[in-house]
């Protein structure tokens, strides 16, 4: 039987970590793009658009991410697509994080004083111009800390993709455990690697919150 040193275990886990990082980046950026679209629907003047965004957000926030992954994994297959695990994982994570980002950003946009909308409307700006030149730049500052904070949820969310067979850090942990019979060491190390990925993000979110505390500056 082959003996595995702690370094062997760690090296294998670190190699799998790049897939966790890559998937997190894809989900976060893709989720941001879809989330921005949802945000515009959510604050649109059209009732149907608002209702669609509301139901979308309710559906994706009200059901487990694991179920969304399962449905993406098995459901896409119904359309005759051969679904690799990474595709289902990326798709489900993008749609899931979009629902949360849209809601976070809506809070930021709505925290901008109503007078700002009215003032820009009185300058004859269209809705997109108001958004682009007046509301968005101000909302952005408020949005940075909670958005960075949510990225931690995305990194942790990628752990679930191991269940549909995407080989990232968690799956590597299971595989290495099966080879080494050292679950205590392996899962301890896996947890520490996740911590090393997430903690800087949540710390910087806290620091940014203090630095960019623009929401309460004028009250």
């Amino acid at each position, binding site marked *: 039987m082959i003996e595995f040193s702690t370094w062997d275990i760690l090296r294998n886990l670190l190699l799998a970590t790049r897939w966790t990082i890559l998937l997190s980046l894809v989900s976060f950026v893709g989720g941001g793009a879809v989330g921005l679209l949802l945000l515009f629907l959510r604050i649109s003047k059209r009732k149907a658009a608002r209702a669609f965004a509301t139901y979308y957000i309710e559906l994706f926030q009200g059901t*487990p991410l694991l179920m969304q992954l399962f449905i993406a994994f098995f459901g896409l297959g*119904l359309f005759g697509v051969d679904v690799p695990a990474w595709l289902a994982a990326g798709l489900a994570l993008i749609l899931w994080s979009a629902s949360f980002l849209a809601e976070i950003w809506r809070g930021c946009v709505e925290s901008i004083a109503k007078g700002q909308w009215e003032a820009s409307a009185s300058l004859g700006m269209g809705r997109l111009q108001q958004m682009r030149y007046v509301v968005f730049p101000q909302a952005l500052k408020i949005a940075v800390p909670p958005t960075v904070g949510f990225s931690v949820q995305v990194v*942790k969310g990628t752990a679930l993709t191991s269940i549909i067979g995407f080989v990232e850090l*968690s799956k590597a942990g299971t595989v290495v455990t099966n080879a080494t019979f050292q679950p*205590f060491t392996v899962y301890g190390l*896996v947890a520490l690697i996740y911590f090393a990925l997430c903690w800087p993000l949540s710390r910087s979110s806290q620091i940014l919150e203090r630095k960019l505390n623009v929401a309460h500056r004028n009250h």
Partner: protein
Amino acid sequence: MNYVFEFGWLAQYYLQIVKGVLITLELIAIGAGFGISLGIFCAWARALGPSWLKPIVATYVELIRNTPFLIQLFFIFFGLPSIGLHLGELTAANIAMVINLGAYTCEIIRAGIQATPKGQFEAGASLAMTPFETFRHVVLLPSLQRIWPALCSQVVIVMLGSSVVSQIAAEDLTFAANFIQSRTFRAFEAYMVSTAIYLGLAILLRQVLVVLGSFIFPRRLAR
């Protein structure tokens, strides 16, 4: 697409689904009860507790909040037996949920304590209450009332997160869905139905918590 939906297959497995729902509910009831209690204790320790306790609780909170629930669950269920601590799958799932929710609610409740006006602590002290008595009788309930909506959201999030306990063979709702899927090969139907049940549970749980809140906090919060 020429897939024919057949939800009829699920009917014969209804007992499995009911059992799954009950176990999911049991998990969240125990998780919320003990988790929020743990959160209150940790929030007290971090905001007002003795200085030696603060770094210990802070480490626990940061460790749990920055690692995935799945890994915490695996560590408890697969990892702890190597140091001689064997747990059944339901016990492990319950412990993981309490530990997880405790860390999150700690931060939420701490925000509520810190938002309490300083005068409340001084008022308690002027009535010759010890700091702990002031916390228990004066500060705690209004703090909880302030952050109740956030607390409700967190409980719902953790209920949805509990679906991963199926991975250590705890027989919750997701386990039932997996079971049906493996017997009937009707994956899409099984997961659609269980997802819909989860959505219903989430909406129901939120309503129950809001009503519960109006019983725990009968008086309006003074501004």
